[in-house]
């Protein structure tokens, strides 16, 4: 972070370090293996929601195709495992590179279009990629592919624990990137695009370049977190890797948390991800995905600024009440004086 930042970055980085430290400590201390299994999914949603928000929240371009990027990441990993037996780090780096390229490609094709057309194009990309993978024998076609996990690396007790820490690192990285974009000139440019694209273009904001950059970063992060899926499940099939649930969740979580800051998607993902995990264990069936859909509609209709917006409103109301109370005291005195 540069010194020109208006707000101090120190608390953020301390928080990030503490988060990573806690994740690492948990990987050695927590006994219950299921904690890591569920925790990984929640962290995965933190990355997806944060990545979605870079384009959707800051620039106002709604991406319905999160699953395209996520699935591509997973299948890049599958390819690398099957052909080169590459380690996890290589899979993640390669996946994020492909994700960035895919983001630029989708962006070039569709970012000249506004609103709904961009959104539909992203669904189209997701379905086309799923169809291609379905017909691709080498990665298992529609039946999926089994992956052999390599032996676990030293300090960690199990593979799930290691992959949990990897997800934590990716989550902190994603949030740091989103925060950097938000506070830099890029964030200002993207917000200008969201508020009025013509005006932004006229005042010299390089709108297309900025949108392409946002697409690339967002896509890279989504694909990066897709890569560990292969090792996490040790089984990948197109229907689950390209599942619409990822697209809906990645969109619902930032909207529920609040899209204006990097904190919103994090809150949304932690909250919704945890609720989903709890519901999954307690009630069988598809209720856990229904929760996401219903909460999305409720927030979009009732609290468009998300949880962050609600918190701000509450704080403002409390402050206003305090001010009123201060003003009322002398006012009541003067009204008693007057006849």
């Amino acid at each position, binding site marked *: 972070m540069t010194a020109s930042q208006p707000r101090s970055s120190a608390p953020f980085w301390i928080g990030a370090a503490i988060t990573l430290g806690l994740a690492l400590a948990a990987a050695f201390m927590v006994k219950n293996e299921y904690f890591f299994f569920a925790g990984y999914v929640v962290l995965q949603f933190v990355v997806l929601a944060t990545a979605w928000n870079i384009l*959707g929240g800051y620039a*106002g371009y*709604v991406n*319905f195709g999160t699953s395209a990027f996520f699935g591509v990441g997973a299948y890049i990993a599958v390819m690398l495992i099957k052909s080169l037996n590459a380690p996890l780090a290589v899979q993640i780096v390669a996946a994020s590179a492909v994700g960035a390229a895919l983001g630029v490609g989708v962006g070039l*094709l*569709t970012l*000249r*279009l*506004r*609103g*709904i*057309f961009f*959104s*539909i*194009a992203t*669904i*189209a*990309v997701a*379905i*086309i990629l*799923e*169809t*291609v993978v*379905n*017909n691709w024998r080498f990665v298992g076609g*529609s039946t999926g592919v089994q992956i052999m996990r390599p032996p676990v690396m030293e300090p960690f007790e199990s593979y799930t624990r290691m992959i949990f820490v990897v997800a934590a690192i990716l989550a902190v990285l994603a949030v740091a990137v989103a925060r950097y974009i938000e506070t830099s000139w890029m964030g200002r440019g993207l917000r200008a695009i*969201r508020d009025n694209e013509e005006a932004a273009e006229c005042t010299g904001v390089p709108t297309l370049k900025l949108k392409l950059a946002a697409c690339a970063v967002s896509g890279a992060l989504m694909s990066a977190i897709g890569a560990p899926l292969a090792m996490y499940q040790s089984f990948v099939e197109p229907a689950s890797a390209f599942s*619409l649930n990822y697209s*809906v969740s990645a*969109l*619902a979580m930032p*909207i529920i948390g609040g899209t204006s800051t990097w904190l919103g998607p994090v809150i949304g993902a932690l909250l919704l991800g945890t609720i989903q995990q709890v519901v999954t264990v307690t009630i069988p*069936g*598809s*209720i856990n*995905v*229904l929760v*996401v*859909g*219903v909460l*999305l*509609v409720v927030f*979009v*209709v009732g609290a*468009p600024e998300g949880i962050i917006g609600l918190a701000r409103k509450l704080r403002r109301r409390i402050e206003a009440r305090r001010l009123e109370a201060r003003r009322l005291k002398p006012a009541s005195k003067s009204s008693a004086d007057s006849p």
Partner: protein
Amino acid sequence: MFSFDLLVDAILFGLLLGCFYTAVSIGLSVSFGLLDVPHIAHPAFVVLGSYGTYLLGSYGLDPIIAGVVLMPVFFLFGMLVYRFYYETFEKRGGDAGVRGLAFFFGIAFIVEVGLILAFGVDQRMVEASYIGKSVSLGETRIPVRMLVSFGMALLLTLLLTLYLSKTFTGRAIKAVAQDEPALRLMGANPVRIKQWAFGIATAVAALAGSLLIIVGPVDPGLGRVYIGRAFCVVVLAGLGSMSGTLVAGLVLGVSESIVLTLFGASWAPAVSFGILLLVLGVRPQGLFGR
């Protein structure tokens, strides 16, 4: 392997299929094409219509009659949905686009998951005298259910086109699409007209739903595939053009049918989305664009 006869068959089947796609898309052509509502949930409403037909069919009602019975219910439902959308998004302005999209996406998702919870993920179908039979046309055999949906789809498109061009309300709907402030200045209420039009679009979706379950078995996730088909047809047609919708539907039907014959059924879902991406990239205003 590949013969001329096979191609003729594919084109013939594609034309029948294309008319059916037109019926599925024509409601969206009104709600999205004319009214500019980002109605991602339209295909989900069509699938909802299919399940309504299935329910009524279990009481022995003919699927087409069931579709017609559902129409007034869906009409009221559509008016309610538009009213709600207008009050919460359009009226407030601001970034209504983003939130409206998220809203309809959420609705589509809720409909899908709701159907899964109510009916399960299994495929459902209906029974009628004309389902399962086929007539032969020279060498080619054509299933009667395709002919039924073909006829109904043509009728529906014709009626809607006539309604929009000949009746007073129909013309008002077109007017609201072209110039809303002008309509307001002339003393008409654009919101009421849009509400009416959205009701019609949803009622048409109900009938399209009954055609959908006549043509083949239906499962809750089918709406997702039809997002591609419906938006492909509407965008290819050029927003709001009814006759364009018919042409675009036929184009999609024939191309899908040819791909099906050449490469197999597993490639079919990519066709509509592929055409859609192509149109968006090359000619976003569509074939008959305004």
